[in-house]
């Protein structure tokens, strides 16, 4: 069964730097003195805390209940005591805080009662998806999208693709995992395949990892799974790029594989699924590559929540290390601080030195050489988007498919003028989002204003209707009471009379009310003060009269600034 491979446009071949960390087997990282487990593993997968400070927890015990549609459960990575539930900084370019459960390990690694293996053959699909959610399974390729949601989407899926491409330079965690635990990965992949009802299982691995390809092929021998070595060309590991290479299907921006009969999972995710279904274990650890400018690069199995600074000690960064990158050098980010925990999406931490990652030369003018367009895997014209972004011509940028950009960094990588193109695109995207939000707010304000006008009109109409009804009623009463008194009256006077009668009655009631009213606190004032008050009252009346007439225009004028600008 040899399928033909497809190509995607562009792509680059940066130095892979895989050998530094790929040679050593995965080791288990020692437990740090404290684990900081975020309740929110990504912007999407949230959980609410169900433990209290001081509580003893066991390894694998649930500490966070899934919250909302995209929520997944969070578990204690080891046994110990909850010492704090607090906001802690996260490994994110913004360094924003997120609520975390801080656990002090007791070092005993006592498991909760292992749930029995979950047999997805006897369970319903919903139960199986709920199990994934309760085990906290999210995509381990970096995006941490909840797996139960991804599996729940789309129907008639033919092909399950397992992403072992690992195209970013330096990272080798998937490589090592495939070499060492190929059978487990395939077992997990088969569970996933059965859950989505796919017929076909294809494992895509870049051909610069021959050992991983061989291990996976050995494990797949005799099964229906197909392990394919794809050409090493960054970003072949991008989900949509890999789907394109293996199946020829192109999935546009805003669409998911499920819509096109293809579903794609990372090999690490498949391994986590295997642990969850066969061993009943939640996702509490992952493989992290420590590499770059350090003495002992390698891959470590790390408990979620391990602070990065504790972990880095294992790799022994060299003294000229000036910063640390989380993720790969193409799409990762320089960590603003190191007292942040490893989360489910943390695949690699690179010790960076000026020697390995020299600072970019100064930006030069674009000469429209189109190197960026040649390298773009999405077939965009990055230099055009750059001109539009620079001139803040965001409408045009969107017309040229700005949002199709996957921010892979190929264009910045090849630019001879050293223009940080992706930075421009990130800027444009965030500006457009901000403007959309502003516009939404303005639209809401306008809608509120329009509704207020509508409501006032309606109330006026209702009042008039009520009045008319009342008048009709009185008229009817009068007609009943005195048909003899006005035998010759025509329709018109008859209509007038009851109105007059109504008015007279109302006036009488008002008079009576006025008489009943308590004396005001102004009544006992001196005549002079009372004259002043009368003066003020008179002025106020004039003002009210003035204010009453142009009120609608004034309201409109007040609302005008919120109108969407052309």
């Amino acid at each position: 069964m040899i399928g033909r491979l497809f190509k995607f446009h562009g792509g680059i071949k940066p130095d892979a730097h895989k050998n530094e960390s790929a040679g050593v087997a995965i080791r288990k990282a020692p437990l740090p003195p404290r684990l900081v487990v975020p309740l929110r593993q990504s912007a999407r997968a949230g959980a609410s805390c169900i433990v209290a400070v001081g509580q003893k927890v066991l390894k694998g015990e649930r500490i966070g209940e899934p919250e909302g549609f995209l929520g997944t459960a969070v578990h204690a990575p080891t046994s110990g005591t909850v010492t704090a539930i607090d906001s802690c900084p996260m490994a994110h370019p913004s360094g924003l805080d997120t609520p975390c459960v801080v656990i002090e390990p007791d070092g005993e690694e006592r498991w909760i009662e292992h749930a029995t293996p979950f047999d997805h053959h006897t369970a319903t699909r919903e139960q199986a998806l709920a199990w994934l959610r309760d085990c906290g399974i999210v995509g381990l390729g970096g995006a941490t999208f909840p797996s139960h949601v991804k599996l729940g989407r789309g129907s008639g899926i033919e092909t399950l693709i397992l992403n072992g491409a690992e195209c970013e330079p330096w990272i080798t965690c998937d490589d090592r995992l495939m070499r060492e635990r190929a059978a487990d990965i395939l077992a997990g992949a088969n569970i996933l395949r059965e859950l989505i009802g796919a017929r076909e299982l294809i494992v895509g691995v870049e051909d610069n990892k021959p050992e991983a390809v061989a291990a996976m092929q050995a494990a797949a021998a005799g099964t229906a799974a197909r392990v394919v070595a794809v050409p090493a060309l960054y970003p072949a590991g991008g989900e949509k790029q890999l789907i394109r290479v293996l199946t020829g299907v192109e999935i546009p921006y805003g669409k998911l594989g499920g819509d096109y009969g293809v579903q794609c999972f990372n090999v690490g995710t498949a391994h986590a699924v295997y642990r969850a279904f066969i061993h009943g274990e939640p996702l509490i650890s992952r493989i992290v590559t420590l590499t770059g400018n350090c003495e002992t690069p390698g891959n470590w199995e790390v408990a979620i929540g391990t602070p990065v600074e504790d972990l880095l000690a294992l790799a022994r960064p060299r003294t000229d290390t000036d910063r640390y990158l989380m993720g790969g050098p193409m799409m990762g980010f320089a960590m603003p601080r190191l007292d942040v925990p490893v989360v489910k999406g943390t695949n690699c931490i690179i010790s960076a030195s000026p020697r390995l990652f020299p600072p970019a030369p100064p930006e030069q003018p674009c000469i429209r050489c189109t190197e960026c367009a040649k390298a773009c895997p999405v077939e965009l014209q990055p230099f055009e988007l750059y001109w539009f972004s620079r001139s803040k011509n965001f409408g045009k940028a969107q017309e040229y498919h700005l949002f199709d950009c996957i921010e892979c960094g190929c264009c910045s990588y090849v630019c001879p003028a050293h223009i940080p193109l992706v930075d421009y695109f990130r800027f444009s995207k965030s500006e457009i989002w901000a403007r959309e939000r502003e516009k939404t707010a303005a639209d809401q304000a306008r809608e509120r204003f329009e509704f207020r006008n509508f409501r006032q009109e309606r109330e006026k109409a209702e009042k008039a209707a009520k009045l008319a009804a009342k008048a009709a009623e009185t008229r009817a009463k009068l007609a009943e009471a005195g048909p003899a008194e006005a035998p010759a009256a025509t329709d018109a006077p008859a209509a007038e009379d009851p109105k007059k009668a109504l008015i007279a009655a109302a006036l009488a009631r008002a008079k009576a009310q006025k008489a009943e009213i308590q004396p005001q606190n102004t009544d006992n004032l001196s005549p002079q003060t009372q004259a002043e008050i009368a003066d003020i009252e008179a002025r106020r009346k004039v003002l009210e009269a003035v204010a009453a007439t142009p009120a609608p225009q004034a309201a409109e004028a007040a609302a005008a600034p919120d109108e969407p600008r052309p």
Partner: protein
Amino acid sequence: MIHSPYVRKPVSVQRTMGLVLLALVPGIVAHVVFVGAGVLVNLAISTLTAVAAEALMLRLRKRPVGIAVADLSAVVTAWLVTLCFPPIVPWWLTVCAVLVAIVAVKHLYGGLGQNPFNPAMIAYCSMIVAFPALMSQWPPAGQLSFDTQLSLILGGPRDIDGITGATALDALRTGLRSGVQTVDKVLEGSAFGALGGRGWEWVSIGYVAGGLFLLAMRIITWHMPVAFIGVLAAIAGLFWLVDPGHFASPLFHLASGGAMLAAFFIVTDPVSGATTPRGKLLFAGGIALIAWLIRNFGAYPEGIAFGVLLMNMCVPLLDMKTQPRVFGHRHDLEGGGK
């Protein structure tokens, strides 16, 4: 850089421009060997003028001078100006042309990357309009000593008829316009060599070699040279087959004038040219078509420069109308995704 990517390909504008200069060397060597060393003097004059003008303009525009001068783009412009000029133009003509190219065409529009027109071609067109006689004095290959060339460049007395002959294109045009001669008759006797003028053919071959080098180094793509040469050959061939008495062969057109210099070095200017693959084909093809029309029916013997400028004007439209399909949008024309 603060944000990803943290790695970069070791390339630069300077490297790109440097490779273009390197690619011009075979043509220049052939020029020196077969036509004379005068071109080297002109190259020196134009380079010095260009660098000085570049530095001056950068300073006036309050831009960092060093890094922009070091990008070698001004030197490329200077060399292209000189190489498309007759090699014995007086020094002041070269200076004027380079000043037009660098000051007016490049910096008045915002400097490197901002000029809508090809600087060398504006320089060529403005000079041929201003000084038609000086701009059409092409020395026959190998007949002028270096001393003569030098004295002419330095502004010495010009005994025009004695020192220069008409170029092949010029002779052909004049001959055909007189109405009595055919292509074969014009070209048979005189000094026009096997293809487009004796000696000059070797210069053209030098440019082709440099162009292939640029293709191999991926500085230029195949689109423009192929479209330019293809369209020029196709239209010339069509008319030559129909009426060989009045239309020169495609080979003559390709080897004459600046066709090869244009195919690999002029139309491929990234800044003022089209950028999309289809746009590049249309752009270069359009230049070839206009050049052939001017060569056959226009007032000037050589029409490539005008063709380039006319097509420069079309670049925004070409780019806009030939945007490539974006990943996953294959079905856009058929009304959205699957």
